[in-house]
């Protein structure tokens, strides 16, 4: 079957969208529910999933390009489907397609346009006004000459952002449904009923659901993107036989429980790291603006999944702590993070981070470094696996460790050595009292 991919109308006011990213390359197979592309409107960015399986035959609107709502932007089809009639009907000539296919080879000519389009054209006065009124110029729609944001646009933006009288419920609903309040504002306070009426009048496309990104999500996105784009990261994987560590935990667990303390594998690995990171100063460091900072203490961060996203509180000066103290302190930080009680102090100053996806059955992944740190340790699922011990195949509880390091500071050999030593202690936790 052939599926035409159209630019979705994401909300009432959307007239065009810009393709930020195609997650699938031309010629690749997609399943239903696979991320297909990311589209940006003047308000938000959405990831669009494939609703058909098949081969992404053609990408007609490339990354960075803009298309009108309902415009044909790509085609998913079976291997032997003839799509030429669609291309002809849509006005796209086959010849052009060839050009598009080769466009990767001629990116230089496109570059100046990209530079031009990425610059926000605003008059000096518009910028001044936006700054004075606390309006993000990036969110202002340009109506001025040659696509320039002029003072009037800023003033309109201000009306949109601030001056519309609206009940909190109605505002929330409008946000959720992608309705531009400015467009329906008539001067009287907008209420829930007004939004519902609009929705009735313009039924929303049910294929997509929009949600405005939370500020935490935006920050996470920005950090992740920056780290991804600016850091040469390498992930190293190594399996550890957990037999001895499991024994250790079982024996201590009962003792700790008497005092109401819960002991997890995270705590034990943190204890191991607290010991090793004092020794491996390159991994307990920050690297920013060409300066290497070696930290005196180990402030060990732990990635905590919270309702709106991700938080990484850190256990301060963990190298001075006993396992018991680590267990208590870590659990408290996690609890505080999840109940939104965390003091901001615990969210900064980290020197190394661990992230555990084992509870979700993950066996290997590539964690992204929490900049300006230079390394992160990913902890995976403990799984019974056949391994060779003394030339015999035995079943052992194995766990994979995924260490990502910043290759600009930490060389591969050092990373491997560090990871190996973690594994050694896990396999022989008596070394902790060494």
């Amino acid at each position, binding site marked *: 079957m052939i599926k035409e991919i159209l630019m979705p109308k994401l909300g009432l006011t959307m007239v065009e969208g810009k393709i930020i990213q195609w997650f699938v390359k031309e010629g690749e197979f997609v399943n239903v529910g696979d991320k297909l592309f990311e589209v940006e409107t003047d308000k938000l960015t959405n990831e669009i999933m494939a609703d058909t399986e098949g081969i992404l035959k053609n990408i007609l609107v490339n990354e960075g390009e803009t298309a009108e709502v309902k415009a044909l932007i790509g085609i998913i089809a079976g291997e032997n489907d003839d799509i030429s009639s669609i291309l002809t009907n849509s006005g796209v000539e086959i010849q052009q397609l060839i050009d598009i296919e080769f466009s990767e080879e001629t990116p230089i000519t496109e570059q100046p346009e990209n530079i031009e389009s990425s610059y926000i054209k605003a*008059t000096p006065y*518009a910028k*001044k006004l936006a700054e004075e009124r606390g309006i993000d110029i990036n969110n202002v729609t340009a109506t001025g*000459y040659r696509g320039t944001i002029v*003072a009037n646009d800023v003033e309109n933006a201000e009306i949109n952002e601030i001056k519309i009288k609206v009940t909190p419920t109605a505002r929330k609903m409008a946000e959720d449904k992608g309705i531009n309040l400015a467009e329906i504002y008539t001067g009287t306070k907008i209420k829930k009923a007004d939004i519902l009426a609009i929705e009735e009048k313009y039924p929303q496309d049910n294929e997509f659901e929009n949600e405005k990104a939370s500020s935490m999500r935006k920050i996470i996105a920005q950090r992740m993107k920056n780290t991804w784009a600016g850091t040469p990261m390498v992930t190293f994987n190594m399996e550890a036989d957990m037999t001895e560590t499991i024994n250790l935990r079982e024996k201590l667990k009962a003792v700790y429980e008497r005092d109401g303390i819960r002991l997890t594998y995270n705590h034990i690995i943190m204890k191991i790291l607290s010991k090793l990171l004092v020794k491996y100063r390159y991994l307990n460091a920050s690297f920013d603006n060409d300066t290497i900072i070696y930290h005196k203490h180990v402030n060990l961060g732990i990635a905590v999944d919270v309702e709106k996203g991700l938080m990484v509180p850190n256990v301060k000066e963990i190298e001075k702590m006993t396992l018991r103290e680590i267990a208590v302190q870590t659990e408290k930080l996690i609890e505080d993070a999840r109940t939104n009680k965390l003091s901001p102090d615990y969210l900064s100053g980290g020197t190394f981070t661990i992230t555990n996806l084992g509870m979700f059955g993950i066996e290997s992944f590539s964690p992204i470094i929490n900049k300006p740190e230079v390394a992160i340790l990913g902890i995976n699922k403990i799984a019974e696996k056949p391994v060779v011990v003394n030339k015999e195949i035995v079943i052992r509880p194995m766990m994979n460790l995924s260490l990502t390091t910043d290759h600009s500071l930490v060389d591969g050999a050092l990373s491997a050595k560090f990871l190996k030593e973690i594994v050694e202690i896990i396999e022989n936790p008596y070394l902790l009292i060494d």
Partner: protein
Amino acid sequence: MRQITFSQATLEAMAEEMRRDENIFVMGEDIARQGGVFGQFKGLSDEFGDRIMDTPISETAIIGAAVGAAMAGMRPVADMHFADFMGVAMDELFNQMAKIRYMFGGQTTVPMIVRAPDGLSSCAAAQHSQSIEAWFMNIPGIKVVAPSNPADAKGLLKSALRDDNPVIYFENKILYREKGEVSEEEFLVPIGKANIVREGTDITIISYSIGMKKAYEVADKLEKQGIHAEIIDLRTLVPYDKEAILKSVKKTHRLAIIHEAVKQGGAGSEIAAFVAENAIEYLDAPIMRFGAPFVPVPFSPPLEKAYRLDSDKIVEEILEKF
């Protein structure tokens, strides 16, 4: 109020000031017997006799002698016939007249006026049609005025005749015939002070001399589009009224400068640069300059017409920036 022409206004200014100050005298070609090529000195010699002096065709000597006489206590007025001929006397204008007070450490003053009829008339071609005021904006030591109407013509000339600095008085040839209200009471128009002739909120249009006619035309056409232009008649080019310009631009956030002189390196360039340097954050559109193309003034009527500013085109360009 009574209406008199620009030319009559200058005559009144001359006569009033010459009666008041006997050190004033006038030198120029064709001014005593003929009353000036444009009649702008008509009748003055009847009243003032040899204080109105016909000279040989010697612009160099006219300006040089005026400088010398000014240094020796007189208040000469030197007529240049056509502003275009100032080039003949350029050394006297910019190396002598402009610099003498400064380079001699303020030992003397050079109170004199150079009257320079300028601008396009009817097919006067390349050497009799120019507006060269911008040259003199680049020469410290001179004041430069360019009135746009009879009242300013009189008031500025009277002020110039009382100023102890050399003043170049650009008088547009077409404006001579223009009538306007001029008070019968004595008045002066201060040098260095612009006139906000129409208040507006959406764009500032700056002009002077004959350019003001275009400024009004343009503003009227913009008004029909709902754009309220503020018009500033600069009146003086050196020293120009920076305060008035900034104040207006900060109010309207847009600026257009119109003059008949060549756009490149024209007065508009200076004003544009000044505003960009001092108030760019108040600008909501690029500064627009309107002036003559970078070409000598051609003779043939259709060519001359093509050379002239067209208010419709100016309006069109301004609207594009809204």
